[in-house]
């Protein structure tokens, strides 16, 4: 966002200070109270202020929407990646079959032969939102296709996120910081990465829902009104419907309340806000079938009721103290001893009866203790790896440097709102460091805190036009004198930084975050654009050339895309809810052809699909991922050992020195069938793998149990048909 430089004053100044020295007056400790409040402005000024705010927010809506459209302009309006395809299928079911059918939907086309109860294992918020928008548009006779509604939902909600960020920053600080925060969050790459047009995933609406809930809660704490508590509980209800990250909210708010009580800022407004929010919020979160009763029985949700009980206790004790006066001490001592004994008895009884569960496994405990990364299927997901240093600057640009500035100012102005921002900021930073995916949660609060830092700094230096410059030197908005040169320099520096930020965000969105991953692009030798549409080619071949009840086996990465685009039954998909089933597929791909064939016949598999990048140099293919099927298969079936597939030095290779087991495995055969007689280019011998940069170790072999059905134009998707047993009659 471009900031105006300070205008030079027209009249000649009689400056008593040297031009390039700092102001000789001592720096006054400027607080928020010194700044002009809206009530001190004239009517005309406040109208102008409202107009500016409105225009800026409208402009931010447009910018946030348009910046996310790169892939739609370059390719077409298509659903990207993997998870969005499943969400799209669910939305189609909701829109065409109705809400009841969606909530009770048991999907028999996936996880053959187990199936999946989708209605109770999915967060319905995204589908419900798209369905509502679709039906509203159709009601007003705008016949927009459901695919376009889904593709453009995320950019639409990005503008909403900017709006609620403005509101929450305005409540915690002032509206100038609010506008800057909204501008930052509209374009920050950490948020864009999961909300481009086409990325139809839960995060598209979840970030808006998080900030919305926090906004409602901060308003509730500031005003003490039950209406805002009810609003924040309803916003929390929307958040629970939207994303599994709601657990962050239901743990952050108790931590914030407890922190407030600890630093001595307990007030009745805090009590009203949190108690009403807890009751209504927990009740609403029970409405989502996927969450079920977890809100009241699960140990990841226990912070909220504990703080709730503590708050009631605190309030009750304050009430009793008011009435008992000096007898309160005796009363309190009796009560505490009684309660402590009671709680201990209940806890020990719960442990003994097995009711209390203190295990420490699973994805959420991994986030609290990242060193305990023992479950292979969680460890294999690329987004769950620890965040590298570079991705902080990549995703947040110079906001990472301004965030501590904002935190410092929040410490200086110690209000309810600033304590909340500090709590949110510190916890979000921790989680942003644990997993790459959680930079998304860090992005909004970084924008807010950076905006506070920027706003507070700029108020010292930006020229306030309403105050006369009586002694000839510039006066900042805070009313203290600064040298004109310093003021202009600082403002100019910030203007440059903001322009750099926008350029950075646009470039990153264009280069890094706008790829649909289902269509790939490369530059040919003559500079021409080469499009690799092999994925869709393979999936549509399946749709048009296989029987409607054919079952397709592949590694779980492609399950959602296959189910959505080829409309066939899949064996495993990205939901990864059943580790044993995935391990069976992993074992199958890692075994020899005969063993694999036995497992495939048991699973009724008709076709097998693999992704192979060695012909064109596409490096995220199945051979590069092959160690994961081996590890996951080996975690359940002990006959699959990872070291059998590595060579004598422990290296993973596919050339002549590779292990015999690897060269005999089904994955190797399916990827490299007939590749040994293919020359990828004139410089290389036949059978040269462009990704691994070696000649493959076993160029000639025949397939006995499967036959090749289809290979796409650039050999990226290869489909094999499983032969039936010969008729023994």
């Amino acid at each position: 966002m471009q900031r105006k430089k300070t205008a030079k004053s027209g009249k000649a100044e009689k400056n008593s200070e040297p031009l390039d020295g700092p102001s000789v007056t001592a720096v006054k400790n400027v607080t928020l109270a010194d700044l002009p409040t809206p009530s001190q402005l004239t009517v005309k000024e406040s109208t102008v202020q409202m107009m500016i705010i409105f225009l800026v927010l409208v402009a931010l809506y447009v910018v946030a929407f348009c910046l996310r459209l790169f892939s739609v302009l370059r390719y077409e309006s298509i659903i990207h990646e993997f998870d969005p395809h499943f969400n799209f299928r669910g939305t189609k079911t909701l829109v065409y079959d109705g809400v009841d059918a969606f909530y009770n939907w048991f999907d028999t086309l996936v996880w053959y032969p187990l199936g999946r109860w989708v209605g109770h294992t999915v967060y319905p918020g995204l589908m419900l939102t798209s369905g509502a928008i679709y039906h509203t548009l159709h009601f007003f006779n705008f016949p927009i296709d459901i695919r376009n509604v889904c593709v453009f939902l995320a950019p639409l909600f990005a503008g909403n996120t900017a709006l609620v960020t403005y509101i929450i920053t305005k409540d915690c600080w002032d509206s100038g910081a609010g506008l800057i925060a909204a501008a930052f969050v509209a374009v920050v790459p950490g948020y864009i990465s999961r909300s481009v047009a086409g990325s139809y995933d839960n995060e598209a609406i979840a970030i808006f829902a998080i900030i919305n809930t926090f906004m409602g809660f901060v308003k509730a704490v500031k005003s003490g009104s039950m209406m805002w508590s009810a609003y924040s509980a309803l916003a929390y209800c929307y958040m629970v419907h939207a994303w599994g990250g709601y657990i962050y909210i239901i743990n952050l708010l108790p931590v914030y309340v407890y922190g407030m009580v600890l630093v001595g800022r307990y007030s009745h407004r805090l009590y009203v806000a949190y108690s009403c929010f807890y009751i209504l919020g927990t009740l609403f979160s029970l409405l989502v079938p996927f969450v079920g009763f977890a809100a009241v029985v699960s140990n990841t949700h226990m912070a909220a009721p504990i703080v709730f009980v503590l708050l009631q206790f605190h309030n009750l004790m304050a009430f009793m103290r008011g009435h008992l006066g000096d007898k309160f001490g005796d009363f309190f001592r009796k009560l505490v001893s009684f309660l402590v004994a009671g709680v201990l008895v209940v806890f020990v009884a719960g442990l003994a009866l097995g009711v209390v569960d203190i295990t420490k496994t699973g994805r959420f405990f991994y986030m609290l203790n990242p060193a305990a990364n023992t479950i292979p299927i969680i460890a294999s997901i690329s987004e769950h790896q620890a965040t590298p240093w570079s991705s902080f600057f990549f995703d947040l640009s110079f906001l990472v440097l301004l965030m501590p500035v904002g935190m410092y100012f929040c410490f200086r102005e110690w209000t309810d709102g600033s304590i909340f921002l500090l709590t949110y900021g510190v916890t979000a930073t921790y989680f942003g460091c644990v997993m790459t995916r959680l930079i998304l949660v860090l992005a909004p609060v970084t924008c807010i805190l950076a905006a506070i830092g920027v706003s507070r700094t700029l108020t010292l230096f930006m020229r306030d036009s309403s105050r006369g410059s009586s002694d000839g030197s510039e006066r900042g908005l805070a009313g203290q004198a600064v040298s004109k040169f310093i003021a202009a320099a600082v403002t100019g520096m910030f203007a440059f930084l903001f322009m750099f930020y926008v350029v950075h965000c646009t470039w990153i969105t264009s280069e890094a975050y706008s790829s649909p991953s289902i269509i790939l692009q490369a530059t040919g030798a003559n500079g021409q654009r080469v499009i690799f549409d092999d994925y869709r080619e393979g999936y549509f071949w399946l749709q048009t050339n296989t029987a409607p009840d054919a079952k397709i086996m592949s590694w779980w990465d492609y399950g959602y895309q296959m189910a959505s685009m080829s409309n066939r039954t899949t064996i495993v998909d990205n939901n990864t809810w059943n580790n044993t089933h995935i391990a069976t597929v992993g074992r199958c791909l890692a075994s020899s052809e005969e063993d694999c064939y036995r497992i495939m016949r048991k699973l009724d598999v008709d076709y097998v699909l693999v992704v192979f990048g060695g012909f064109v140099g596409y490096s995220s293919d199945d051979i590069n991922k092959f160690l994961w099927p081996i590890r996951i298969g080996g975690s359940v079936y002990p006959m699959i050992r990872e070291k059998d597939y590595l060579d004598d030095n422990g290296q993973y290779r596919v050339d002549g020195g590779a292990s015999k087991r690897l060269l005999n495995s089904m994955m190797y055969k399916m990827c490299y069938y007939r590749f040994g007689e293919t020359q990828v280019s004139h410089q290389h011998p036949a059978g040269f793998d462009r990704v691994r940069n070696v000649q493959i170790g076993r160029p000639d072999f025949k397939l006995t149990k499967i036959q090749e059905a289809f290979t796409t134009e650039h050999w990226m998707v290869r489909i094999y048909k499983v032969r039936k047993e010969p008729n023994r009659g």
Partner: protein
Amino acid sequence: MSSTDATAIFSAFKKSYNDSTSHKLKVCDAFIVFFALNCFILFLYRGLVGSFPFNAYLGGLFSNMGMLIFTVCLRMQAAPANEPQFQGVTHESSFCDYSLCAVLLLFTSVHFMG
């Protein structure tokens, strides 16, 4: 010794409470005690008979706990001693918010009981 202590505490509390609380607030307090008793009865029932339709138990418990909390909040906002903490919240808006929260709570609880 402790029983006289307890009696002394209780009578001191009773005297202070009767002197300082207006009639309006005592009505609120009676309501609060009613909800607390309901919660206790539900809890006792769950201990004795079990919680089989768990969503019914939760629906009953939450509606009682919720109304308890909302009445406590209403009382807080109505008590004259708390005026300085609740700037901008009039008695009328306080009661309006109370009704809104009660409607949301009871509608959802009845829906949830199934």
